[in-house]
C-alpha cells in the first residue's frame, strides 16, 4: 500500500472520485428523464483509475480513451458544463453535440476521444506517440481501454509496434472483468493481462484499480519510464463497474452477490475510510465537498439546458475541412 498522502492531496483525490461519481449519477437520472439518449456507459466503481492516473500527466501529454470516458474527460479538465451539454447533444458540448456520451473530444487538452470501437484507439495512440517522437517533443500518450480490447488484434499489433519503435505510450487497461456481458474467463486464454506485456518485451504490472494511490504510483513509474525514452508499458488496473454495461443492459450475466462483494471495495468509500484512519477527513470536509460538487453539477445541467441545438444547415459542416 502506498504511503499516506498529505491532507490536501488526499482531499483532492477524494473530491475527484466523488465528482466523477456524482456527475454520472446525475447523467443516469437525466437518461431516465429522457434528456440524454443513445448509449450511456457509466464508470461508477472505476473512478480510482482516472482519478489516480490522469493527474500524473502533463499538459503536453495526450489521452486516448474509450466510450466509457466521462471520468477521464472530467479529470483532464474539460469543463463539466461542456460535457453535460455534449450529453444533451447541444452545440455547446465538447464535440458540438455531435458525439454524445461515447465521443468526448477536447483538442485543446489533447483529449483525442471518446472512441467507441473496442481497441480502435490503440493504433491512434501509437501514432500520436510516433508524432511526438518524430517532432522531438516530450509528450507521452496515455491510452485507456478495457479488458475486452485485449482480445482484439489491434491490441497485439499496437503493443508490438509501440515496443518495436520504443514509443512513449502508456497502455492502460481498465480490467473490469467483463467484455460487455462476457466474463474474462470465457473469452481469454490468458486472463493475466499484465503478463501479456512480456510477449512484447515491455514492463507490465497488475495494479489494484480500486486504490487511487496504487494507481497513481504505478502510473508515475510508467510515465517516468516512457519519458526517459524507454518505451511503452502496460498497466492492468483491476477494477469493477458497479452499474450495468450501458443503460440498455439487463445484467443477466453476473449475479448480484458478486456485485455486492465488489462494492465492499468501493474506491471512494475505502479511501474515505483510510482518510479517517489518517485523521485527515472531517464530516465538515465531506459536507462541503458534496455541496461544491452538487453546485457544479447543477450549473452544468443549467448550462446544458440553456444550450442551443446546432443549426440544421450545419449538418454537413466539417465532413471535410474545406
Amino acid at each position, binding site marked *: 500500500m502506498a504511503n499516506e498522502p498529505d491532507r490536501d492531496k488526499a482531499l483532492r483525490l477524494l473530491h475527484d472520485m466523488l465528482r466523477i461519481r456524482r456527475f454520472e449519477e446525475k447523467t443516469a437520472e437525466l437518461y431516465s428523464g429522457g434528456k440524454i439518449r443513445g448509449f450511456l456507459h457509466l464508470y461508477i466503481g472505476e473512478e480510482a483509475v482516472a482519478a489516480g492516473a490522469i493527474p500524473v500527466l502533463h499538459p503536453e501529454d495526450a489521452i486516448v480513451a474509450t466510450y466509457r470516458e466521462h471520468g477521464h474527460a472530467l479529470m483532464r479538465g474539460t469543463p463539466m458544463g461542456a460535457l453535460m451539454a455534449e450529453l444533451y447533444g447541444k452545440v455547446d458540448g465538447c464535440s458540438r453535440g455531435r*458525439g454524445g456520451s461515447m465521443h468526448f473530444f477536447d483538442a485543446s487538452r489533447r483529449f483525442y476521444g471518446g472512441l467507441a470501437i473496442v481497441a*480502435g484507439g490503440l493504433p*491512434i495512440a*501509437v501514432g500520436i506517440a*510516433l508524432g511526438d517522437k518524430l*517532432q522531438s517533443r516530450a509528450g507521452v500518450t496515455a491510452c485507456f481501454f478495457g479488458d475486452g480490447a485485449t482480445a482484439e488484434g*489491434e491490441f497485439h499489433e499496437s503493443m508490438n509496434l509501440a515496443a518495436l519503435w520504443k514509443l512513449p505510450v502508456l497502455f492502460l487497461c481498465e480490467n473490469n472483468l467483463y467484455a460487455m456481458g462476457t466474463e474474462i474467463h470465457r473469452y481469454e486464454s490468458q486472463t493475466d493481462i499484465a503478463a501479456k506485456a512480456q510477449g512484447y518485451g515491455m514492463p507490465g504490472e497488475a495494479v489494484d484499480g480500486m486504490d487511487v494511490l496504487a494507481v497513481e504510483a504505478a502510473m508515475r513509474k510508467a510515465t517516468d519510464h516512457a519519458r526517459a525514452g524507454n518505451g511503452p508499458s502496460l498497466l492492468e488496473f483491476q477494477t469493477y463497474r458497479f452499474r450495468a454495461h450501458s443503460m440498455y443492459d439487463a445484467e443477466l450475466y453476473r449475479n448480484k452477490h458478486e456485485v455486492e462483494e465488489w462494492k465492499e471495495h468501493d474506491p471512494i468509500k475505502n479511501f474515505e475510510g483510510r482518510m479517517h484512519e489518517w485523521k485527515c477527513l472531517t464530516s465538515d470536509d465531506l459536507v462541503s465537498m458534496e455541496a461544491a460538487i452538487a453546485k457544479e453539477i447543477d450549473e452544468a445541467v443549467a448550462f446544458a439546458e440553456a444550450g442551443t441545438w446546432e443549426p440544421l444547415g450545419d449538418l454537413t459542416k466539417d465532413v471535410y475541412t*474545406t
Partner: protein
Amino acid sequence: MRKLTYREAVREGLHEALRSDPRAFLMGEDVGKYGGAYACSRGLLEEFGPERIRDTPLSESTFVGAGIGAALNGMRPIVEVMTVNFSLLALDQIVNNAATLRHMSGGQLSVPLVVRMATGAGRQVAAQHSHSLEGWYAHIPGIKVLAPATVTDARGMLLAALREPDPVFIFEHSYLYPQEGEMEDEAGPADLTHAAIRRPGAGISVITYGGSLWKALKAAEDLAAEGIDAEVIDLRSLRPLDGDTIIASVRKTHRALIVDEGWRTGSLSAEISAQIMEGAFYDLDAPVDRICSAEVPIPYPKHLEDVALPQPATIVAAVKRMLEKGT
C-alpha cells in the same frame, strides 16, 4: 514532356514530398529496405533514413491507425498499404476513425493522412489479390478517393493529396506501374476536383478511371477507325465525383457507357448511372450501359481472368450495341 514509368512517377512524387515537407514520412510494409512491393520507394531509405522511411510489421490496422494518430499530431504521414486486398484489415481505422474524427469532434480535429495502395486485376494473381474496391471507399463521406491513371497524375495527385487537410486514399492500378507515359513539364500538384476529358468526341461518353482508362482509349481508337467518335472521361477523383463534367459530356453526346473494373452490383458505376439519370435523363438517346467485372472472384487462369474483366473489345461491342439501339 519526358517519358517515365508510372512507378517512377510515384517515386518522384514521394521524393518531392519528403524533400519539401519535413512533416512528411512514409510507412508501410516493405517500403524501406525492400524498396516497396512495387518498387515505388526504392532508394528513399538510403536518402531519407529510417526515421522517415519506416518499414512496418504486417499490421495494417495498426499502421494505418498510427498514420491517423501521427496526422492528428502534426505530421503528414504517407502510408503505403501494399494492396487494396490488405486494406480490408485496416477498414476499422479507415471507416470508424479517419472518416469520422473531424465531423464527430465538431471540427476540432483533422486527419491530414495520405494512404496509397495498389488496386485491380489483370496480372493472374487470383481472387485474393485482384480486388478493385475503390468504389467501396468512395461510398464513405469524410475521405477523398483518387485514382490516378497517368504518370502526371501519379506524381501530381500525391503532391496535391499531401496539401489536403483531410484523409486522402490513392488507388494505383497495379497494371500501370511498369507502363510508360509522358510527364508534362513543370507538372506540380494536380487539380483534385475535375475529371479530365482524355479524348474529346461527339458520339458517346465513355466514363472510366484508373487502369480501365487505357482500355477505354484503346477501344475509342478502334471505334474511330470505324467512324465512331467516342469521348473518354477519366474521373480521376472518385470521391468527390465531378458530376458536372459527366453531365456536360452526356448532354453533348447523348449516350453514356461506364467502364469500371469493380463489380457491377452496388458499384461506383451504378452511382454514376444514377447521377446521369438525375441530371441528364432527357438528354439521353439510349439507356446508360455499364461494362464491369464479372460477378465472380477473379480467377487465376488467363483466359478466365481476361473474360472476367472489362476489355477494349467488350467496350467496342457495347458502344456499337448502344449506337444501334439508339435513335
